[in-house]
């Protein structure tokens, strides 16, 4: 069926080209039926891309090695789950996934907004069409997943690093995030093209941005967990260029989600918001470029390809085109209100934005500098961990503190008296925590101690906000405490859901500080029966076991673990030898303590004489990082949950302007 796949992708290319050209002409000449036809073309493009994707999935499941892509990325022995995940395991499949998600997002954005925001959608369609055209061109002309060959007996298999359950969810979620940022970008450009300076584009895209941002956040955490389990170096984030590629758009989108509130509450920062959307979208394209072009050497980059120049050209086009449009519409975007005080909620949001953008730019420079150095001077340069860690402290710690300050400061301005009233308790909690930790010996890492104290401050503020809010709701409406609490959240999901997300970031900060500033590592070469001590743990190398896995030979060193004399069972670490792929992977042993959040992490290098070289890490609080993911998801869901009251208010607003009644 490769012909069907190819035909479907050619149809997609034609449809998105039509959406771009007909959509732009219809919006310019105000042609109603042509505009609707262009919208339908985007819907049809999703259908054709879905057909192409199903053809590829069917070929993967059937082990149809006449497809070059299937033969290059799977083998007969590969378990079915990983066989399906090979869809995004290679270059061509990844690009097809981008296109599938993009046309899916585009179709959903058109369907959900074609009535309520139809005046904007007419301009959004050609923008979405233009972005989709680029990716459709890539999968039709440059990197087709439907190339065929004489059928070989077996395939080359999937890179062992990708044979991990987290790899079944991590790339699709990252792509959901990357691609999802196209929607706010398209609406922002649509609003500028339509000469609309109101908030309609923000209202229409708030949830899309949140979905993309949540997917990107969760995707990164799953990626970090994959790196922790699979890469076998003892960490979860190495400031690798590809890891940074996902972090940068997430940081830019975080800045946008905050600054957009200033536009909604105060009518300010219109230009800044549009610029942030362009920045976030361009970074998502840059991230895909970094991952897919093979331009950087990365443990996460599994391809070398020729799509780099195409991507660079497209990114330049997007950045220059959108900035030119912003410049052309500057007079429309002037704010009518000003910042009244440097001590106000909007000012803290502004500081937060500046820090987030500064952090993003420093990371971007760290990623770009080695590429530029290689290209311009021919010198290979590496920007290492100290650079990123330094700037993470410089910008990250004040950001953490601001998360606590922001919610306590009123909009417009706050007096010293008000600040004293609200800051007393959280400050007390932060100082108390700092002193207790200092007494317990946490002063060995000053940044770690500061991070913990700031975290306590933020958690204190969040708790105070919930307690005061619930008390006030109960005083207003009566009823039980749980009822008042749920009412409080239901009446302002954005604010209280946001606090839950802040709590997740605090958990993340505590987990990172604990596992990086206070971790320990011990290493030794052991013969069977010998013991290594690591912190409070003692590990005895009991035996070496060999067993057959689904598609690999598993070799494991088995260690008996005890802590302070208590037997904790065994932990296994070793190697997997993959037959079809002819590769060996490191398989680490992890023993998690869910009560303390601590991990015992073991890496084993097995020697032919039966001895093994062990590296044993004790990582305090590392499990809080993964717990943060769950809390982050909960907070995001609270914010994303439909708010009937808000929808009624918006419906009234747009009905008053006659928008739903329009053709």
């Amino acid at each position, binding site marked *: *069926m490769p012909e069907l796949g190819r035909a479907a992708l050619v149809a997609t290319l034609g449809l998105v080209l039509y959406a771009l050209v007909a959509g732009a002409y219809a919006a310019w000449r105000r*042609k109603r*039926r042509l505009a609707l036809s262009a919208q339908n073309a985007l*819907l049809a493009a999703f259908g054709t891309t879905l057909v192409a994707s199903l053809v590829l999935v069917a070929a993967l499941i059937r082990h149809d090695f006449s497809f070059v892509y299937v033969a290059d990325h799977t083998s007969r022995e590969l378990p079915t789950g990983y066989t399906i995940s090979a869809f995004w395991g290679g270059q061509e499949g990844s690009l097809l996934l981008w296109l599938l998600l993009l046309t899916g997002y585009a179709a959903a954005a058109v369907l959900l907004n074609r009535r309520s925001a139809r*005046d904007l959608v007419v301009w959004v369609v050609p923008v979405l069409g233009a972005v989709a055209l680029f990716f459709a061109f890539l999968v039709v002309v440059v990197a087709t997943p439907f190339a065929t060959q004489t059928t070989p007996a077996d395939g080359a298999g999937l890179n062992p690093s990708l044979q991990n359950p987290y790899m079944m969810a991590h790339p699709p979620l990252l792509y959901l995030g990357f691609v999802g940022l196209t929607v706010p970008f398209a609406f922002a450009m649509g609003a500028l093209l339509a000469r609309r300076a109101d908030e309609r584009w923000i209202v229409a895209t708030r949830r899309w941005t949140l979905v993309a941002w949540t997917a990107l956040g969760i995707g990164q955490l799953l990626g970090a967990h994959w790196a922790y389990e699979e890469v076998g170096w003892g960490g979860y984030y190495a400031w690798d260029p590809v890891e940074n590629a996902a972090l940068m758009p997430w940081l830019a989108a975080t800045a946008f989600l905050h600054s957009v509130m200033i536009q909604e509450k105060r009518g300010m920062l219109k230009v800044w918001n549009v610029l942030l959307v362009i920045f976030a979208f361009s970074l998502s394209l840059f991230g895909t470029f970094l991952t897919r072009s093979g331009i950087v050497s990365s443990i996460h980059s599994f391809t070398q390809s020729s799509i780099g120049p195409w991507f660079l050209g497209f990114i330049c086009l997007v950045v220059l085109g959108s900035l030119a449009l912003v410049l052309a519409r500057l007079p429309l975007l002037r704010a009518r209100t000003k910042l009244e005080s440097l001590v106000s909620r909007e000012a803290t949001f502004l500081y937060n934005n500046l820090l987030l953008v500064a952090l993003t730019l420093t990371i971007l420079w760290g990623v770009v500098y080695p590429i530029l150095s290689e290209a311009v001077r021919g010198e290979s340069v590496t920007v290492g961990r100290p650079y990123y860690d330094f700037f993470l402290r410089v910008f990250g710690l004040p950001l953490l503190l601001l998360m606590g300050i922001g919610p306590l400061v*009123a909009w417009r301005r706050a007096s010293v008296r008000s600040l004293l009233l609200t800051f007393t308790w959280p400050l007390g909690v932060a100082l108390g925590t700092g002193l207790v930790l200092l007494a317990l010996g946490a002063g060995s890492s000053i940044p770690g101690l500061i991070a913990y104290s700031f975290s306590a401050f933020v958690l204190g503020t969040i708790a105070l906000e919930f307690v005061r809010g619930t008390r006030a709701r109960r005083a207003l409406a009566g009823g039980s405490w749980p009822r008042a609490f749920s009412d409080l959240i239901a009446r302002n999901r954005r604010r209280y859901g946001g606090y839950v997300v802040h709590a997740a970031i605090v958990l993340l900060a505590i987990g990172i500080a604990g596992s990086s500033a206070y971790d320990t590592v011990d290493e030794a070469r052991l013969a069977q029966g010998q013991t290594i001590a690591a912190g409070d743990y003692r590990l005895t190398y009991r035996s070496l076991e060999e067993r057959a896995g689904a598609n690999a030979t598993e070799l494991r060193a088995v260690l008996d673990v005890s802590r302070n004399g208590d037997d904790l069972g065994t932990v296994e670490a070793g190697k997997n030898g993959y037959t079809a792929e002819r590769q060996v992977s490191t398989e680490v042993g992890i023993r998690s303590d869910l009560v303390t959040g601590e991990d015992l992490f073991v890496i084993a290098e097995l020697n032919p004489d039966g001895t093994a070289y062990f590296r044993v890490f004790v990582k305090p609080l590392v499990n809080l990082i993964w717990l943060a993911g769950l809390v982050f998801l909960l907070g995001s869901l609270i914010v994303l949950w439909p708010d009937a009251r808000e929808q009624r208010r918006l419906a009234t607003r747009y009905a008053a302007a006659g928008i739903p009644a329009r053709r």
Partner: protein
Amino acid sequence: MTLALVLGALLAIGCVILVALPYLRDPEPANDRLDSLGELEQRQLELSEVRDRALGTLKELEFDHRTGKVSDDDYRSLVGPLRREAAGALRALEPRSRETTASRVDLRRRV
């Protein structure tokens, strides 16, 4: 190959029908022009945003005052301008919404 051709042809036909649907449904429309927001309606929308913004901030201020986050002095200094802003937007919207409704009714009558 044959099955692929048949499926491909069906897919192409489906796409053409979907894209042509607005023309098939409405071959000879009385009006094929997309409406756009007039100056009056744009202004109406901007005023509605100002009103919603002021009312929202006012509501939040009341709640923050009730929780004790905003002191009495801050509340008194902030609530006045906010109320004036909201009242101003409401006043400005009042005749406009009447005007817009009237013009729409007038337009419908003429059609």
